[in-house]
C-alpha cells in the first residue's frame, strides 16, 4: 500500500487535491513505460506487463470505417461484457459518417480522444491514463482499457462488475425485532446501506487503501458534526500504519489497530448490522468498512456495549431493561459458576447449605476425580461439542450439539466420571455464554472461565476473588481508542447509567455519551 509513502509528503489524507498530486508523484516514479500513440507497441507493453493470463482479453478492431486501429483490454468475469458490447464496441464500430452525418475524411481527421469521450462512448466513468502500469492495474480491477492508434493516453472505462450476493439477514446477530438487513461482501453495497438508511446529514465516508499486494478499499465512516476530530485523526493514523501484503478480512484491521493486543477483551466491535453501525455513528463513534467482508468495525467500544443488542432499543424499555439484566447475570454465571463449584467442593464444603452439601457429596462420592479434573473434563467436552456444532453442516449442527451434550452428560454421570450437579453447572454456563450477543466477547468469557477454574483449584474462594480483582484491574486499565473500557460504569456518571444496566425510556436519553467528547452533545429531536 502506498499510503505510507504518501504520508511522508502530505499532511492530511482524505484531501482530494493532495491525493491527485501524490498520484502523479507515484506514477512518475514508474515513468519508464508510457502509453504511446503507437498501438502495437503499447499493446505489447501491456501484454508484457500482464503476462500470460487466459482471462485477459485483447480485442482489436477498427474504429467505425475510419481505418484507425484500436483495441480494448478487459478481464473476463470482472468486467461487464454486456456493457462492453453494447456501449463500447458497438458505438466505436458503428459507421461514423452515417451516425454523425459527416464526411468520412473529416471524421478521420477530427477523431480525437475528446470526440470519443464526449460523443461516442456512452459510459459514465471514463478516465485518462498515461502509464502502462496504471493501465494494467485498472484492467485487473475490472475496468476496460481503450487504446487507439495515434491517440496517446489510454482511456479507462469503468466497466467493473463485482459479483455480490443479495442482502440477507445477518447470521451472527439474529434479532427477533429489527431490520432484516446485513452487510454484504461488497463495499459499495455496504456504504450505500449506510447512506440509504435515512438521509444522514454529514455522513463522511473517507476511502483508504490497505494491503500492499492486494489493494483493498477501506472506508472510515463518521458523522462530521458529531464525532470528535481527534478520534477520527487517531483512527486514520492507525489505519495508515497498517503495513501488510494482504488484508483479507476486517479481523486483520481490528487486530492491527487495537490498543492492547495482549488483552483477552476485544477493543473494537464487529457487526454485520447497518442499524448498529448507524447507532454507533450517532453516538460519535467511528466505523470502518472493508471491501470483501460483511463485518464492519466500530471503535471505540466499551464493555457495556458488548452486552447490548440493538433490540434493547427496539423493544419497549421495560423488556429491554429486563433482558439487559439477564445478560449481566449470564456474564456472571458463565464466568464464575464452575469456579465456585470447584472452590466450594474442594476447599469450603462447610459453606454450602448442609442439605445441598450432603446431596452433592452423596452423588460425588462415586466420582474418582477431584472437582477440578471433573469440571475441566466436562467444560472441555462441551467446548469441543460447541465448536463441532459450528463446523457441521447447518441441519445437523444444532442437533449434534444437543444430542452430544445430552448423551455425553448422561453417560458421564452413569459411568461415575462426573457428578450430576456438575452437568447442571456446565449446561448452565454454556447456555449463559450463548446469551451474550457478541461472539467475540462470549469467547473471551469462555477462556476466562477456564482461568477462573484454575484459580479456584489453587486458592479456593480466595483464588476466585483474586481472579475477579485481576480481571477488573485489567478492565479498568484497558482503553479503546482513548476511551476507558469500563466507562460509563466508572468513573461514576449517573446521567449515563440510564443506558448501562438499565435501558431507560428513549425520551429520557437525550444526550450522547460524554466519553465520546462529541461536538454536539444533544440528540436532536
Amino acid at each position, binding site marked *: 500500500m502506498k499510503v505510507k509513502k504518501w504520508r511522508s509528503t502530505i499532511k492530511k489524507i482524505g484531501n482530494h487535491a493532495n491525493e491527485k498530486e501524490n498520484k502523479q508523484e507515484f506514477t512518475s516514479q514508474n515513468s519508464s513505460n508510457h502509453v504511446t500513440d503507437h498501438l502495437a507497441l503499447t499493446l505489447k507493453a501491456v501484454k508484457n506487463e500482464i503476462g500470460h493470463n487466459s482471462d485477459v482479453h485483447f480485442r482489436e478492431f477498427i474504429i467505425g470505417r475510419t481505418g484507425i486501429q484500436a483495441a480494448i483490454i478487459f478481464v473476463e468475469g470482472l468486467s461487464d461484457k454486456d456493457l462492453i458490447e453494447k456501449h463500447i464496441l458497438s458505438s466505436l464500430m458503428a459507421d461514423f459518417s452515417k451516425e454523425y452525418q459527416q464526411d468520412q475524411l473529416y471524421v478521420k481527421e477530427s477523431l480525437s480522444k475528446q470526440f470519443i469521450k464526449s460523443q461516442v462512448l456512452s459510459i459514465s466513468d471514463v478516465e485518462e491514463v498515461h502509464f502502462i502500469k496504471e493501465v494494467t492495474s485498472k484492467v485487473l480491477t475490472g475496468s476496460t482499457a481503450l487504446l487507439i492508434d495515434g491517440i496517446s493516453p489510454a482511456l479507462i472505462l469503468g466497466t467493473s462488475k463485482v459479483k455480490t450476493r443479495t442482502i440477507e439477514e445477518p447470521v451472527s446477530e439474529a434479532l427477533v425485532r429489527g431490520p432484516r438487513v446485513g452487510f454484504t461482501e461488497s463495499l459499495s453495497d455496504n456504504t450505500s446501506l449506510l447512506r440509504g438508511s435515512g438521509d444522514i446529514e454529514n455522513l463522511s465516508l473517507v476511502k483508504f487503501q490497505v494491503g500492499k499486494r492486494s489493494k483493498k478499499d477501506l472506508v472510515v465512516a463518521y458523522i462530521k458534526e458529531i464525532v470528535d476530530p*481527534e478520534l477520527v485523526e*487517531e483512527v486514520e493514523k492507525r489505519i495508515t500504519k497498517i503495513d501488510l501484503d494482504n488484508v483479507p478480512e476486517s479481523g486483520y484491521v481490528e487486530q492491527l489497530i487495537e*490498543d492492547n493486543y495482549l488483552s483477552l477483551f476485544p477493543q473494537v466491535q464487529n457487526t454485520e448490522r447497518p442499524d448498529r453501525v448507524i447507532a454507533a455513528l450517532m453516538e460519535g463513534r467511528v466505523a470502518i468498512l472493508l471491501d470483501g467482508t460483511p463485518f464492519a468495525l466500530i471503535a471505540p467500544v466499551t464493555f457495556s456495549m458488548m452486552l447490548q443488542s440493538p433490540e434493547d432499543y427496539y423493544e419497549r424499555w421495560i423488556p429491554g431493561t429486563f433482558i439487559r439484566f439477564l445478560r449481566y447475570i449470564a456474564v456472571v454465571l458463565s464466568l464464575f459458576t464452575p469456579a465456585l463449584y470447584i472452590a466450594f467442593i474442594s*476447599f*469450603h464444603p462447610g*459453606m454450602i*447449605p*448442609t442439605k445441598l452439601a450432603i446431596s452433592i457429596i452423596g452423588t460425588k462420592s462415586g466420582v474418582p476425580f477431584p472437582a477440578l479434573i471433573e469440571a475441566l473434563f466436562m467444560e472441555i467436552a462441551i467446548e469441543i461439542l460447541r465448536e463441532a456444532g459450528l463446523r457441521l453442516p447447518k441441519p445437523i449442527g444444532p442437533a449434534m450439539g444437543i444430542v452430544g451434550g445430552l448423551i455425553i452428560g448422561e453417560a458421564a454421570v452413569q459411568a461415575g466420571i462426573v457428578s450430576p450437579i456438575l452437568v447442571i453447572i456446565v449446561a448452565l454456563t454454556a447456555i449463559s455464554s450463548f446469551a451474550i450477543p457478541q461472539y467475540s466477547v462470549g469467547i473471551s468469557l469462555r477462556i476466562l472461565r477456564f482461568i477462573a477454574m484454575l484459580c479456584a483449584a489453587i*486458592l*479456593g*474462594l*480466595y483464588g476466585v*476473588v*483474586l481472579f*475477579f*480483582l*485481576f480481571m*477488573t*484491574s*485489567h478492565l*479498568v*486499565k484497558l*482503553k479503546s*481508542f*482513548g476511551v*476507558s473500557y*469500563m466507562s460509563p*460504569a*466508572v*468513573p*461514576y456518571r449517573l446521567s449515563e447509567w440510564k443506558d448501562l444496566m438499565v435501558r431507560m425510556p428513549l425520551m429520557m436519553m437525550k444526550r450522547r455519551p460524554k466519553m465520546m467528547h462529541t461536538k454536539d452533545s444533544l440528540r436532536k429531536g
Partner: protein
Amino acid sequence: MIKGSESEVMINSKDRITTPQTAIVVINFILGTGILTLPRTAAEQVKTPDVWLTVILGGIVTMIAAIIMVKLSRKFPGKTFYQYSKEITGKWLSKLISLLMIGYFLLLGGFHARSLAEVTGYLLLEGTPTWAIIMPFMWISLYLIRGGINPIARLFEIIFPITVILFLLVAFMSIKIFEIDNLRPVLGSGVLPVLKGVKTTALAFTGPEIMLIILAFMKEPHKAGKAALVGITIPIFIYVITVVMVIGALSIDGVVIRTWPTLDLIRSFELTGLIFERFDSLLLVVWIMQMFASFTINHYAASLGLSQLFQKNIHPFMYGLLPVIYLISMIPKNINDVFKLGDVIGNIALVLFGFLPLLLLIISKIKGVKYETNL
C-alpha cells in the same frame, strides 16, 4: 491521547480523578480490618453497650483531622504532600517527614497483607502457607497501580457498590439473632466510658490521610473537603451497623473474647430457604476486596512518595517496594503480634496525621506561604 505518559513524577493532566472517585478512595482506604475487629477493640475500651456512640464520635474526630489535612493540601494546588512539605519545613525536615510517611504506608500495607493472610488462612485456606496467600495478592496490586491513580480509582468504584450491597445484605440477615436488650441501657454508665474509646474508634477510621496525596490529582480540588467528609460518613454508617449488629447479637461480653467478632456473628446463624444458608463467604469476599483496596493505596502512596522524593520514575519503586512490604508483613509471629503492629501503626497515625498537619498548617499560616490560591 492513547497511552498517557508513563511517568508519574509529574502529575499528568489526564491522570485526574473526579470528586466521587476521591470520596471512594477514602472510603475504601478506611474500610479494612476495622469491619472485622472494631466491635472487639472498641468494646474492650468502652465496656458498655454504647460502643456505637463511640464509633460516631471517633468518626467526627477523624473528620476534623481530615478537614485540617485538606486545608493544608489546598494551599499547594497540584502538589502532593511529598512535594509541598519542603516549602513549609525546609528541605531536610520535609524529607524526614516524607520518609516517615512512606514508612507508615509501608507498615500499614504490611499490616493489611498480614491480616488478610491471617483471616484467609483461618477461614478459607487452612494450612496454606502465608506467602502463597500474600504474594499473588501483591502481584495483582502491582499490576493495578502500574496504571496510575486513575485505574485505581476506577477499580475502587467497581468494588464499592459490591461491598455496600453484600455488606448490607449480610448485616440485615443477622437481624434474626439480633437482641435489642444487648444494646441497653444507652449511656447507662454516663458519658465517660464512651469518651474512653474514642481514640480506638478514631484509629479505625485511619484513611483520610490519603487526602494529603490524592488531592493533587483532583479535577476539582475545591470539593476536596466535601469528598473527605462523604468519604468518612459512609464508613461511619458501615461501622455503626457492624457494631450494632455484632453487639446486638453477641452482647458486650461475647464480643470481647472473640478475635474476629463480625465473622463469628455471620457464622453463628443459618437461614434456610435461601440459596445460601451461611453468609460468611459473602462477607469474606467483600472483605478481601476491601483489603485489596487498602493495600493498593498503601503500595501506591509509598511508591509515589519515593518517586517524588528522589525525582525518579515511579515504576522501579513499585517493584522494589513489593519485597519490603512482604518482609514487613512477615514480621509478626502470631495473630497477637499482628494486632500489636496495628496498635503501633495507629499511634504513628495519631502523630503523623492527627497533630502534624495541624502544626504544618499553623506554620504555613504564620509564614504566609505564597501559594494562596483562589481555585
